[in-house]
């Protein structure tokens, strides 16, 4: 029998969350969707440890090892060779996370990767997209908010007419709050729930100011607590999701407020540890629901792990490609937020791509660089929001700290340096940000900034008057042919100034010619 076909191989994902370790074993069908073969979860108080003391305790680490060994046993029963083990917010914040990860590796042979908030968002988005595919076209006509409340963080993604305009990871979560409430000795359950609701509201107001939460017509909610609550909500079942009503959800909270944790555990049929998180979790959801005021909420049958399955079978670059549209949309969302001139950055993007397309082979560039180039083109001027002076530096800072869907920290660091060097000084080893990059990344920054600088120079006037007809080579001379017949002095001057990097690093000369008229 042949097993070499990629389709037929089961893969697994394990996720070290704030309150539990969960696993999922799936297999891709010929149609490309995932069939889930097995799954499970075991409580682990990572979040309690980390959000309380900042450290993962030794006992928790031991328990994690036991659980992971058990999961390995389950995986062995399916002959699993490829799997992905990730940690989310709790692990991300643990001060002893490297030691913890090493300990797990030594004891179980399992290598845990820490997933950034943005990567987590990406996986969640993948999962939601596949689960809601039948209704996706309809959803894409509206403004949709995707919300996943976790133990340590809450992921929010905003889609406007199918375009992802914001992707945020907020530091609110059921375990995190439970920890804080427990810390405040004597805080009654009532006071505790009010505290959660106030905190969430405060963050939501901030988010609303940042990305605008008006005119949202559809809410998609994921996460353990909302799924547990379904049973009590008389939800309408569709094939891959259920629909709940906001009012009913709200009144459910009033019911559960009156119960002790033991009673909650009994009603939900879950361990005490999960029951404890139920009400805090529900309140975070409820605060969102009430803030956004959508009457019906979609609860898909999936979690981030379904998205992660995709992550096992695809290389990171492939996944990034899959998200090209979403990543660019997210960049445009950031650019708009900082009032960057759309016509200009779109021009720069187009021009960058033209240059990329003639140079990629020469410069040894790959597809993923193309995407980074596009992203940098869109974002290159956002620093002007703060000040035109030194806007490349402000821009670098903003990119580094912006939530850009689909890009991890490393991507963002490269992107920030590209923005940093789109004008003025060339990359230098003794520049702090550039110097801290690894060699390959530094090279990437140099190559891509070189392109970006030229593309930006071509629209020095910010009027998009230079329409490039063609780019061709005369020996080492790279010629831009435009049908613009007016005065090219400004652009030529600018090019001269900004082609330095390309010339210096790659030995190309740049010429700008009007059609038929030699310089």
């Amino acid at each position, binding site marked *: *029998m*042949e*097993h070499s*076909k990629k*389709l*037929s*191989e*089961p893969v697994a994902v394990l996720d070290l969350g704030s309150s*539990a370790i969960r696993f999922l074993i799936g*297999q*891709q*069908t*010929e149609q490309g969707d995932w*069939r*889930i*073969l*097995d*799954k*499970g*979860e*075991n*409580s682990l108080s990572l979040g309690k440890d980390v959000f309380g003391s900042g450290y993962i305790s030794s006992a928790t680490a031991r328990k994690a090892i036991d659980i992971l060994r*058990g*999961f390995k*046993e*389950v995986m*062995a*029963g*399916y*002959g699993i060779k490829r799997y992905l083990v990730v940690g989310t917010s709790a692990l991300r914040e643990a001060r002893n996370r490297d030691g913890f990860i090493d300990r797990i590796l030594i004891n179980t042979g399992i290598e845990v990767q820490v997933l950034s908030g943005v990567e987590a968002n990406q996986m969640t988005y993948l999962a939601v997209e596949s689960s809601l595919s039948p209704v996706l076209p309809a959803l894409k006509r509206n403004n949709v908010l995707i919300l996943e409340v976790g133990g340590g963080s809450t992921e929010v993604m905003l889609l406007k007419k199918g375009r992802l305009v914001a992707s945020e990871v907020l530091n609110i979560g059921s375990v995190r709050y439970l920890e804080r409430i427990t810390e405040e000795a004597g805080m009654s359950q009532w006071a505790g729930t009010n505290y959660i609701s106030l905190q969430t509201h405060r963050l939501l107001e901030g988010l609303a100011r940042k990305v605008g939460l008006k005119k949202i017509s559809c809410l998609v909610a994921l996460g353990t607590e909302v799924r547990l609550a379904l049973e009590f909500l008389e939800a309408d079942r569709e094939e891959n999701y259920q629909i709940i009503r906001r009012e009913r959800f709200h009144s459910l909270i009033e019911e559960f407020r009156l119960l002790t944790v033991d009673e909650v555990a009994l009603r939900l*049929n*879950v*361990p005490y540890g*999960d029951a404890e998180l139920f009400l805090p979790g529900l309140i975070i959801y409820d605060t969102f629901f009430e803030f956004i005021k959508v009457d019906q909420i979609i609860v898909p049958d999936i979690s981030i792990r379904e998205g992660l399955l995709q992550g096992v079978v695809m290389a990171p670059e492939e996944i990034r490609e899959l998200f090209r549209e979403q990543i660019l949309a997210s960049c445009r969302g950031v650019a708009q937020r900082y009032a960057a001139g759309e016509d200009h950055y779109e021009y720069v993007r187009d021009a960058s791509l033209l240059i990329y397309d003639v140079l990629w082979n020469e410069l040894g560039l790959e597809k993923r660089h193309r995407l980074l180039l596009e992203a940098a083109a869109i974002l290159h001027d956002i620093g002007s929001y703060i000040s035109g002076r030194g806007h490349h530096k402000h821009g670098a800072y903003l990119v580094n700290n912006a939530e850009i869907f689909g890009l991890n920290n490393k991507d963002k660091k490269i992107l920030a340096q590209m923005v940093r060097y789109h004008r003025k000084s060339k990359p230098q080893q003794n520049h702090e940000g550039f110097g801290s990059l690894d060699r390959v990344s530094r090279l990437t920054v140099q190559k891509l900034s070189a392109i970006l600088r030229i593309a930006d120079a071509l629209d020095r006037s910010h009027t998009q008057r230079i329409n490039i007809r063609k780019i061709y080579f005369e020996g080492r001379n790279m010629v831009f042919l435009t049908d613009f017949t007016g005065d090219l002095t400004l652009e030529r001057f600018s090019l001269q100034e900004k082609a330095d990097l390309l010339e210096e690093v790659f030995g190309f000369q740049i010429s700008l010619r009007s059609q038929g008229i030699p310089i």
Partner: protein
Amino acid sequence: MSQKNIPYINFELSWLQFNSRVLDEGCRKSLPLLERLRFLSIAGTNLDEFMVIRVARLIRWDRENRDVLGPSGKMSSQVLAELMPRLRSQVERLYGTLETEVLPALNQAGLKLKRGEALKEDEVEYIRRYFRENLFSVLTPRFIGPGDLSLRETLTSGAVYVIFSFSEEELGLVKIPENLDRFVTLPGKKKVTLLPLEEVILRFGPLLWPSRQVRGAAVLRLSRDANLSVEEEKDEDFLSAMEDVLDDRVKGRPVRLEMVLNDSSEEGQRLRKLLPAWVDVDPQGVFELPRLPRLSCLMDMAQLGGFQGLQYPSWEPVPPAKYSSETDIWQFLKEQDLLIHHPYESFEPVVHFLEQAAEDPEVLAIKMTLYRTSGDSPLMRALETAARRGKQVTILVELKARFDEGRNIGWAKRLERAGAIVIHGMRNLKVHAKAAMVVRREQQGIRQYVHLGTGNYNDSTARKYTDLGLLSSRPELTLDTALFFNAITGHSTTLGLVKLVMAPLSLRGRFIQLIHREMDGARQGKPAWIRAKMNALNDPEIIRLLYQASEAGVSIDLNVRGACSLLPGLKGISSRIRVISIIDRYLEHSRLYSFCNGGKPEIYISSADWRTRNLDQRIELLVPLEGQECKARGLEILDNIFWDNMQSQELTSTGEWIPRWENREEPPFRAQEFFHKAAVRRHREREERNRRELQVRRKPPGT
């Protein structure tokens, strides 16, 4: 209606009624003689178990001065007081029927069970030789001297002894070897004549103490409290903890003494008086029998060859329709589910399922629960083979399966040695669910196959118990089964089952919800009914709800083989509830639950009864039959079971059971016979079809 005052029949008293129904079968003149004997044997064996578990507990409470209020509103002392006289009269009816009806009639028919004193001279010679040659070397005589109070400690629970008294304080004790046949066949041509071993020992046992003068003798049997208390906290080495308590069972507190004392001498009177005191059994626990303590021995007699006329005709299990031993089970299950009705349909496919899994190089893993199995189980051997071949074999062996603990410990050790992952049950819960899963690597990827059933993985009882088993590869069932195994093997604490329902987590809730749905339906004027079959019914919450449903307009048919605490037919309480019970040649063991659902019936099979212990203290599964064919078949089976009027009795509103074969208006219908004939007919039709279609066995041309 509050929970406290619902009409509720005490469980022990109802159980006694069940055994009385078994006994009724032994009394029915219309049954073949050896089948009657078999029922008497079963009734006796049932009583043995009842005594050491249920009665022993009541007696223990009584001794500890604990008076426990039960759901029937009766205190445990009151139950014990009501129970013991009934139990005694049942024993009397049992032995009375045996002595005055069945044994004499068998004698007439050529099968004689002889008494020692009636032996002819040549027979005496024969057993003298038998004693010397076959018995003498295997007997272990024990002398109990003056001041030695060890008789109570010496007697093993349930074993039969012959005791001789030498002087006032000297006794000789011989245990009847359990590995020998209980009966010696005496020479003779016309008849088969059997003599129980105790009669041989009574006669020649004194030879074991040549220097002592025997003054009197008795046959006796002591039964001890068999309720075990194992330290549930000992997770790491639960296996050895269980071994410890099993040793204790042999030494549990005595609760019953059975004596045969055909001796009116002074010494006989003395023994009659002293024996109970020596073994410390209260007068209520002392039973003087005419002969033959431990009636399980009658089973051997009932199965004797050469008496076909006195036995039921043989009903050989047939392969399920569409299935044969040549079927490629994986291919078959890819195309359809297979619902098997045991024992009408054979257990072979289940054995094949595991044997093929063990042999198949593409099978990666096998998981299974084990509650009760046979001594030399082909299923266990298959698992052993699979483990040795490097497959991942995970088996949950329930070490707490009552009376099978020893055997299960044996299998647990054997499988562990073969390399299987053996889980020794769960703390405070017995794993009673019957589930198996095979993970197989195929061209399209991994595929899982499951077996979910109502009966144990026991090839031997699968020939005697009615059960249902479902083999399937439906993803929705296989995923749930995988989740179930994760839960019971400690890999997962949260389940998220979609199709299956598991006790103790959500089974009770689901049943309550299903009953409520019928009530709501009835109130809205929709058709509403519940039809269920189980081994016993005693959960107060379910019973109360059934009463409410009945009065809400839901018609409820219950088929409860054993004890039933619900009282049907009471005006204003249970007027729409009917309870019947079937006792026939096969032990009714399948559990089926069906709900009208507003005209779109749903049917489930389960390992659980509507008993509190099943719903709250055990791991059980409820499995929906959803494939069109399986569902229709399940509904049909459940429907037919209620038509039985030859082997069933009905519970009246006064708590009595009335045979349905008396005053019958409808034509006679025997459910078990119907199922047997239907299975045979389906099998024959298939054979017939196969004969007509010439099937050539060869590789496709050109390969």
